[in-house]
């Protein structure tokens, strides 16, 4: 079965090609076909997984070479897929969540003029994402990496008639490409120093690298991750990406693509571990992003933007986990996040579907009565996100904080708690403003159809029961399964004073505290939150604009960049470089004009020139003897 792994990306790719080339004839069945193919892909993945589980833990890494791709001299980048626990966890997440979202989209996108195209892109995305996670060398990984970026672009800008959507798509592509390019350089450096781009060779050589080189490679790869996973300072594209259709946000900008960065760090952990600095950077960037994005999320009125910042924040968490060496936990949180964040997005999508696109929480309210399933889904997802015990988010987040604490990074741990607190606040706020209270505008929402509800329900179940897969950092199924790839989880002798249970209690308390605070503000009715908004307008604006990072880029990079470009084009190129060229031409014309005047038409002038020549010639020749 393992040999058929190529089917996993190939099936959705085939779907994408078919739908792109024959979109019109296939229009009626586009959604079904696409879902079916992703579903098939999921099934194949499961079968491969079963194969994998059938062999010993140490034999669970298989490379399946498909064909030679780029090979010049010693450089070889074949299309070769890697089947190992890590890639399989990722593949299952991608195909699983992907399948659900495909199904959800069938109704959600119903009636869109570019219905076939949508599923083509979605299929293409799944194919690219699977290539990313299944690749067995850095270059092929980069192919998937860029592929998902492209699909992200296509899907964000899906409604390209809207300027904002088109802009957001472009922004996403370009901002992530900055990171990607750094990553590409990292790949070069890896090749240059280890002589290969295959995972085994590169990571195998990681231990022997000079620490500076290892740091450089790790940080360059991490730069790619920062871009793709929307970490500070390259996070600015993700909130804007919410211009895309909501299922897209759920799949790409919550569950899968944005987690590619985490996957990369985990996959390449051997290199990161070769450099103290790199790991530290990963952890710090992660936690800072987590707090920053959490705060920004509080300031958002657009429900999807809340979720977007939330995603950024949670990705920060994952990096924190990776940064403290808890790779399996990071992946577990990644999977957990895929479930509950997708659920949250689909719920938000359901809201949009019902309100004809209105998603400003200040204009919503009281939707629970009209849309109970959606409200319940959102609630479950939100609680999971907030880390309420027994939901999947609780386990994963708790393990991250514990890992930070046990690694002796108390500062990270405390900051992580703060982030958790903030998380609880913003998600509770979002829920309360959307679903509770009285409606704040004239809308006539209705519950979504079954094809949308069912996937939500499935994800909801996942969010509730997902904890069963990895309830413990040491013994959880996911963590143990990943062990051979990311290193066996160690049972830390508690470095600090707190026991594991103590840590859990503290984390839970923080989450509950956050929920309570948010309820006090937005749900109890005792506080006039709208008055507070007005009163702290400046702070609110700062939060809602994500602390003006985007604006700073505008002022510091984009504007000067444009000025520089326009200087280059209109002054440097036209005046200086081309001016020199034209100047030479003009100089000759002018010279000719002057010379022309010497041709006076007077014989005597001509004779004078003649004499000049004759005298010069004779003198030169005679004097030289």
């Amino acid at each position, binding site marked *: 079965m393992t040999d058929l792994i190529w089917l996993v990306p190939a099936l959705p790719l085939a779907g994408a090609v078919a739908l792109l080339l024959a979109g019109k004839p296939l229009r009626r069945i586009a959604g079904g076909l696409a879902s079916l193919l992703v579903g098939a892909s999921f099934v194949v993945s499961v079968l491969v997984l079963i194969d994998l589980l059938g062999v010993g833990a140490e034999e669970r890494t298989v490379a399946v070479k498909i064909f030679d791709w780029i090979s010049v001299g010693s450089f070889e980048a074949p299309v070769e897929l890697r089947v190992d626990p890590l890639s399989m966890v990722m593949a299952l997440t991608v195909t699983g969540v992907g399948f659900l979202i495909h199904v959800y989209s069938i109704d959600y996108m119903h009636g869109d003029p570019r219905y076939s195209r949508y599923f083509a892109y979605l299929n293409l995305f799944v194919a690219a994402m699977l290539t990313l996670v299944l690749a067995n060398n850095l270059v092929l990984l980069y192919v998937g990496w860029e592929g998902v970026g492209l699909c992200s672009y296509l899907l964000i800008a899906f409604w390209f008639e809207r300027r904002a959507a088109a802009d957001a798509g472009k922004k996403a592509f370009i901002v992530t490409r900055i990171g990607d390019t750094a990553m590409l350089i990292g790949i070069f450096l890896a090749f240059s120093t280890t002589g290969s781009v295959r995972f085994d060779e590169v990571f195998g050589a990681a231990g022997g690298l000079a620490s500076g080189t290892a740091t450089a490679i790790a940080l360059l790869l991490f730069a790619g991750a920062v871009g793709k996973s929307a970490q500070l300072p390259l996070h600015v594209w993700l909130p804007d990406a919410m211009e895309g259709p909501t299922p897209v946000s759920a799949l790409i900008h919550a569950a899968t693509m944005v987690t590619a960065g985490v996957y990369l760090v985990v996959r390449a952990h051997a290199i990161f571990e070769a450099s103290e600095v790199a790991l530290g950077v990963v952890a710090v960037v992660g936690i800072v992003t987590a707090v920053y994005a959490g705060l920004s999320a509080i300031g958002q009125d657009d429900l999807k933007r809340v979720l977007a910042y939330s995603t950024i924040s949670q990705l920060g968490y994952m990096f924190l986990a990776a940064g403290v060496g808890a790779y399996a936990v990071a992946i577990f949180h990644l999977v957990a996040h895929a479930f509950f964040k997708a659920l949250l997005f689909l719920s938000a999508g359901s809201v949009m579907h019902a309100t004809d696109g209105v998603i400003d929480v200040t204009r919503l309210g009281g939707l629970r009565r009209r849309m109970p399933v959606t409200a319940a889904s959102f609630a479950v997802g939100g609680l999971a996100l907030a880390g309420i015990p027994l939901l999947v988010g609780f386990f994963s987040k708790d393990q991250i904080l514990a890992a930070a604490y046990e690694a002796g990074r108390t500062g990270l741990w405390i900051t992580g708690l703060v982030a958790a607190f903030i998380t609880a606040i913003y998600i509770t706020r979002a829920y309360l403003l959307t679903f509770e209270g009285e409606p704040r505008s004239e809308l006539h929402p209705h519950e979504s159809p079954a094809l949308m509800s069912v996937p939500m329900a499935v994800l909801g179940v996942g969010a509730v029961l997902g904890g069963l897969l990895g309830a413990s950092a040491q013994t959880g199924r996911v963590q143990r399964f990943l062990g051979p790839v990311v290193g066996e989880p160690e049972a830390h002798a508690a470095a600090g004073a707190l026991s594991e249970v103590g840590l859990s209690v503290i984390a839970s308390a923080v989450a509950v505290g956050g929920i309570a605070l948010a309820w006090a503000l937005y749900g109890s009715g005792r506080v006039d939150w709208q008055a507070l908004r007005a009163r702290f307008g400046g702070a609110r604006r700062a939060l809602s604009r994500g602390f003006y990072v985007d604006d700073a880029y505008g002022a510091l990079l984009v504007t000067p960049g444009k000025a520089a470009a326009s200087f280059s084009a209109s002054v440097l190129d036209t005046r200086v470089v081309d001016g020199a060229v034209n100047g030479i*031409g003009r100089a*000759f*014309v002018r*010279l*000719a*004009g002057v*010379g*022309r005047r010497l*041709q006076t*038409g007077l*014989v005597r*002038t*001509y*004779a004078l*020139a*003649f004499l*000049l*020549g*004759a005298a010069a*010639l*004779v003198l*030169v*020749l*005679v004097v*030289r*003897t």
Partner: protein
Amino acid sequence: MPIETPDLVLAPILPELILSGVAMLILLVDAARPSRGGRAMALLAAAGILAAAAVVIRQWQVPAADELTALGGMVAVDRFALFFRLVILACALLSVLLGAHYLERTGEGRGEYHALLLFAAAGMTLLAAAADLIVVFLALEVLSLSLYVLAGFSWRRLASQEASLKYFLLGAFSSAFFLYGIALAYGAAGTTSLAGIADALSGPGTSMALALAAGGLLLVGFSFKVAAVPFHMWTPDVYQGAPSPVTGFMAAGTKVAGFAALIRVTTVALGPVSWELLPAVVGVSALTMVVGSILAIAQDDVKRVLAYSSIAHAGFVLVGVAAANQEGVSGSMFYLVAYAAMILGAFAVVIAVSRTGEGRTSLRSYRGLARRNPVLGALLALFLLSLAGIPPTAGFIAKVLVFEAAVRAGLSGLVVVAVLASVVAAFFYIRLIVLAYMEDPEETERVPAEPAPGLALGVTAAVTLLLGILPGLLLDPLERAGVLRW
């Protein structure tokens, strides 16, 4: 006082005899029957030229005699001379063709035109064969005097008269310098025979200073004839004012003949001092290329453009002369053939475009030419590209040959100047093509195709293109014949 008159073996100068004989015949016929149109005279002249050419070809086929000179060392009988005679005769034939057509249109058709043209041709062919400075001088005068008159032949136009006067005054002025050069050469070497001068110069006790002064003055005279800077200033005015067929003949024939003599004089007579002469030749060459190329840019009359072009080309040929080696000479020979073909072709286009005598020589008249007569436009482009030295034309191969010779002679610097000048030169050729191809015509009337210029165009275009693609057609016979044996 008994003087044993030497046996005059006239065979070596048979072509010249035929030419001047036919010229005189034309004069007689014309005097007897002045009413006869130019056409009969043109045919007569053409027949004379063809007969002369037949003689030359016959002589070419006959293996070279043991003697290198005839008529008491006055005339060379080598294939170098034969080759140039043939080229000049070809130019003359085409000029007769063009001239007959031209005169018919202007109504100036008279036998004297053809007679003078034949005289000039005889002077030129003799110049190419001259082996003694006095013959060089006399041949030069024969062709010059004829051309002075021919330049003013279009007597109804003041410009033609002016061209004639300017050409004459400066030509006589230059003759004086040339003659002075001969005198000094005679003083230095005690003889005017080219071979004799060479012997004297390589022997001991000959004054280098005097020889070089003579060389300088001779160079001045030749430079004037071939329009090298700074002795070139008559060229644009005279080329513009003279009737176009005459201009074509001057541009092609005079230059070919002048260079033939120049090459012979510098390599044979002044061969021993060629190293000392080098800076002068190099300087004139460089100056000629640069000035000719640059000044052409600002012209707005096609004949002046071609005049400057011919100046610049004199500079390029001088590159080959400066190289002063076997390759340089054969390169120059090839160059001159190519140049003659393309400049005559260009003037044929000018004649075809102007239609009535000298009208429409302003560059504006060339706007949209390609649309008004695509074939004419294409031919003009061909000639201009060849003049610019763009492959695959004869002009390109010619440049390669002389440049290679110069590189071989260690004159890479001169070659660099040459290529840069040819870029500048390309500027104005391209400008003309722009007008012909890329601008809308001022007149929409088609330019008619006429047989006489058509024939000339066909021949010159064929030569220009063929020599560009298969230069071996000319080079191989030249090499086989070992033309440079003297």
